């Protein structure tokens, strides 16, 4: 029951991420995804990882993003509406593709390992993350996209987690934390140097 509720909320959070133009709102949805992943881990019985994911993905990483946003001018934190509409359409196409792929792969292995809906929703989260990275022009939305894509991959790896692999998952979380930390520093520099967070201003390095 908890599993299904979390999965449905996760797919909803993906489309909320794609459908909003306000970066501050996107940060909140990123935190929501962290909480949902922690709830799923709790359902799987991984207590240590539940706490780690809750703290890192639910609180610390969104907090880092929020801290970065606080220094930016408010009018620079809104994405163009045209891009938002295109992203939602691309996300729906991603969901349809993931469901189709799951149906094609519907072997015994899939059902034994992945609970129902796990595979398509993991893939959809990954696709939504990639769409955010490619489809938005702000540096911070690329970081949010990276986090969403990583959440999708984390979800797909969840059924394979055992007590013996907890150290690896913690190392992975540490890596993601450092990555977002470094990206946060870079965003601050970008904002200072370019007076904007738009990566389409990056035009000096071309052939």
């Amino acid at each position: 029951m908890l599993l299904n509720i979390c999965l449905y909320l996760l797919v909803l959070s993906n489309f909320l991420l794609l459908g909003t133009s306000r970066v501050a709102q996107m940060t909140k949805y990123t935190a929501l995804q962290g909480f949902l992943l922690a709830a799923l881990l709790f359902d799987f019985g991984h207590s240590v990882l539940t706490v780690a994911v809750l703290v890192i993905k639910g609180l610390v990483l969104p907090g880092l993003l929020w801290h970065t946003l606080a220094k930016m001018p408010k009018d620079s934190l809104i994405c163009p509406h045209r891009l938002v509409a295109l992203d939602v359409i691309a996300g729906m196409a991603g969901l349809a593709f993931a469901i189709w792929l799951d149906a094609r792969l519907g072997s015994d292995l899939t059902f034994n390992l992945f609970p129902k809906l796990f595979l398509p929703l993991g893939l959809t989260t990954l696709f939504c993350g990639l769409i955010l990275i490619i489809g938005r022009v702000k540096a911070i939305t690329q970081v949010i996209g990276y986090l969403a894509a990583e959440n999708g991959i984390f979800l797909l790896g969840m059924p394979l987690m055992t007590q013996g692999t907890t150290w690896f998952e913690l190392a992975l979380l540490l890596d993601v934390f450092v990555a977002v930390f470094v990206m946060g520093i870079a965003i601050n520099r970008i904002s200072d140097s370019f007076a904007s967070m738009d990566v389409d201003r990056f035009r000096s390095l071309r052939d």
Partner: protein
Amino acid sequence: MLIAILALPIVTGLIMLFFGRALLCRLLLPVTAFCHTLLTAAIAWQVAHGQKPSALAGMLAPDALGVLFLAIASVLFLAVSFYTVSYLREEERIGIHTNILLDHGQFTNQPERRFAAFLCFFLASMSLVTITPHMGVQWVSVEATTLSSAPLIYFHRHKSSLEATWKYLIICSVGIALALLGNILLSVAFYSPKAPADAGFDQVAWFIAHAKNANPTWLKAAFVFLVVGYGTKMGLAPLHNWLPDAHSQAPSLVSALLSGALLNCAMLGLLRGHQIMQAAQLGEMSSQMLIFFGLFSLVTAAVFIVGQGHYKRLLAYSSVEHMGILALGIGVGGLACQGAMLHAVVHSLTKCLLFLLSGNILARYHTYSSYDVRGLRWTMPFTGSLWLAGFFAIAGSPPFGLFVSEMLIFKGLLAQGYVWLAISYLVLLAIIFVGLSVACLRMVQGNRPLDMPKSPREPVLSVLPPLVLAICVLGLGLCVPDALWHFLVRAASLIG
């Protein structure tokens, strides 16, 4: 010893970061590099004599392939560490710099201690990539290489380097995330509900031993994601977009490490996947993918090298070319694979040599344009001579080592019956030779610019490491020592 090889750069890096004065950093860096090389030599000796060094319950247990790439990284870092002393001294003397690529704005460098510390962390993460047989740990350490090298690329705090750093961070992080998906799919392929997998730390050996029971569909999907993920970091076209920007904007000594050592480390992740695919009788598919990406990289490099005016980007595209050659040789297998192993060694040495020299040229001429650099032989006699030798070496001319390795790969292609591939390979190498020669020879020839001093002094530490590297590259062209060749054959036998 295996723990020491990780602990040494981490501890030194922390000392530099928290207590590092400039003099201490400049002293510690070569000392650390030298000790690391000694430890690497000891590990290589053990592995060459059939021993299996292991530590941390098997989490650190390198094989011949891993030791080969560890040795390359360690030797390159040693050369770079001496060069860095001279480089940092010069940077300190200049103080405030001007961005010559964009808007001519002024900028300062990052603190020296941070730069030196992250160089050490970068070495530690590359070492971990090469000595672990666990694919998860390898993934974590490859991501750690990205995070530890990003501040190095942003050493010069200006807009262009920030742009390059951002592209590097985002593209490589996303690429590596896809490699993680590849790792997960690999575990799915080996999943069995009746007997849960307990691979321990030596995952590669476990996967190879149980490869015949793996689900082929999931295994193929896993390899595709491993190629995309690690291929991005390795700079295989069309996933190479970060590479020319990062290599051109990083300090030249960092470019030397990125190109000579980091790309090999990323390739190791790909090679582990190839090993497992071969054990599962799916080697044909993985070989074909490597050949495709290899050839595509060669074509891409040829297109961008011809007419390239930015000499550091020229070297970066040359790295794309050589990664393509490596992928091609490994994909074909047999003699070509042995040639590819030799190619990995010689390319790393040569590219390190050229990037270090490009740093000398940039410091003297203050331009990235090969059109504006004229008369190197007059203005910088040592650097100019080595640049010329380096050009002939990287273009695959005799008597340098790359000629031998490229010919071995060519013979391997013919021996396996890939006649059209061999012809395409030669044609592309010829085009690249022409493209490189136009730019590199133009820089050496011509008259000395009027505002350049006639016979300026060149700091010993800025030309000595490239000189030693050039001698090694020449030596490997004249004669490959038996011990090295046997080691390369052993490494090649693991991947085909």
